[in-house]
């Protein structure tokens, strides 16, 4: 699985508690919403990184093991994601989205999370364009189909839905709440 991160931290060969101590330091240098890859060989680090993320509010995306190195992915928490305010009015819930996926009509699911988040699990057939890249990549989106924008909790997708509507896309729906509550089938990047 090929995953893009904004920053890589080498904590290989270090024993507890150093992987989390180093992660704590490194994550302060990231912008909110950015992704860090933490490389570790401490076998306890998977449980520790996950617990640490739970304590600090950062988002634990997942871990992959390659050549005896554990690669943990974390996304730095952002303030705006905790805000409840939604502006794009045309919304659709997860149940409605599921019945549409199973229906006759061909629809577009646009996942605007970071590519590392997408890699660890997304709705089968979804297209990934991170929110930060949306403006340069409008041309990749099929205007004629109904576009269902999704993210983790419905906030980034709300911003994306607004941008798309401003750009002239007509049939844009924000999927709420988002992948955190999605119980339908998902797939991972290979």
């Amino acid at each position, binding site marked *: 699985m090929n995953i893009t991160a904004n920053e890589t931290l080498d904590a290989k060969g*270090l*024993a507890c*508690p150093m992987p*989390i*101590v180093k*992660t704590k330091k490194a994550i302060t240098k990231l912008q909110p919403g950015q992704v860090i890859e933490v490389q570790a060989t401490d076998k306890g680090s998977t449980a520790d990184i996950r617990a640490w993320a739970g*304590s600090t509010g950062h988002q634990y995306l997942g871990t992959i093991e390659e050549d005896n190195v554990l690669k943990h992915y974390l996304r730095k928490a952002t303030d705006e994601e905790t805000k409840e305010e939604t502006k794009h009015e045309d919304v659709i819930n997860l149940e409605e989205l599921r019945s549409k996926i199973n229906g006759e009509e061909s629809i577009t699911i646009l996942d605007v999370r970071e590519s590392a988040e997408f890699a660890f699990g997304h709705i089968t057939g979804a297209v990934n364009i991170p929110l930060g890249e949306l403006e340069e990549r409008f041309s990749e989106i099929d205007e004629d189909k109904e576009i269902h924008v999704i993210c983790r909790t419905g906030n980034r997708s709300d911003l994306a839905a607004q941008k798309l509507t401003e750009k002239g896309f007509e049939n844009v729906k924000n999927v709420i709440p988002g992948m955190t509550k999605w119980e339908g089938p998902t797939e991972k990047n290979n």
Partner: protein
Amino acid sequence: MANTKVAIIAANGTLFDAYKVFNVATAAAASDAEVGIFFTFEGLNLIHKEAHKNLPLPEGKEHFQEGFKQTNVPSIEELVGIAQELGIKLIGCQMTMDLMNLEKDAFINGIEVGGAATFIEYAKDANITLTF
């Protein structure tokens, strides 16, 4: 854990004790908890300027030396530095310092000195209290 407070008493002075104290303390501080450690009796070794660099293994456990090397655990000196960098409050016990005839300058820089009441005042609203 930003609103979590951890109070630790360090009362023993071997290398094992030092790892228990500083591993838990730095992990808590790295998780955004407020952490304070009260060093008393042999626990004072853990912040003594010279002693903390060369703490003894518990008697009969000397064979663990090899394991420490192999697993590449950080040195206590390094952990003390990290603890201070993370803002962990280090409090030396005045009474024990007096009876051991040690002044504040025998200890690493940046420690506070106080009595039992200082620790109680700090720990009264702690969420987690540990004794090592």
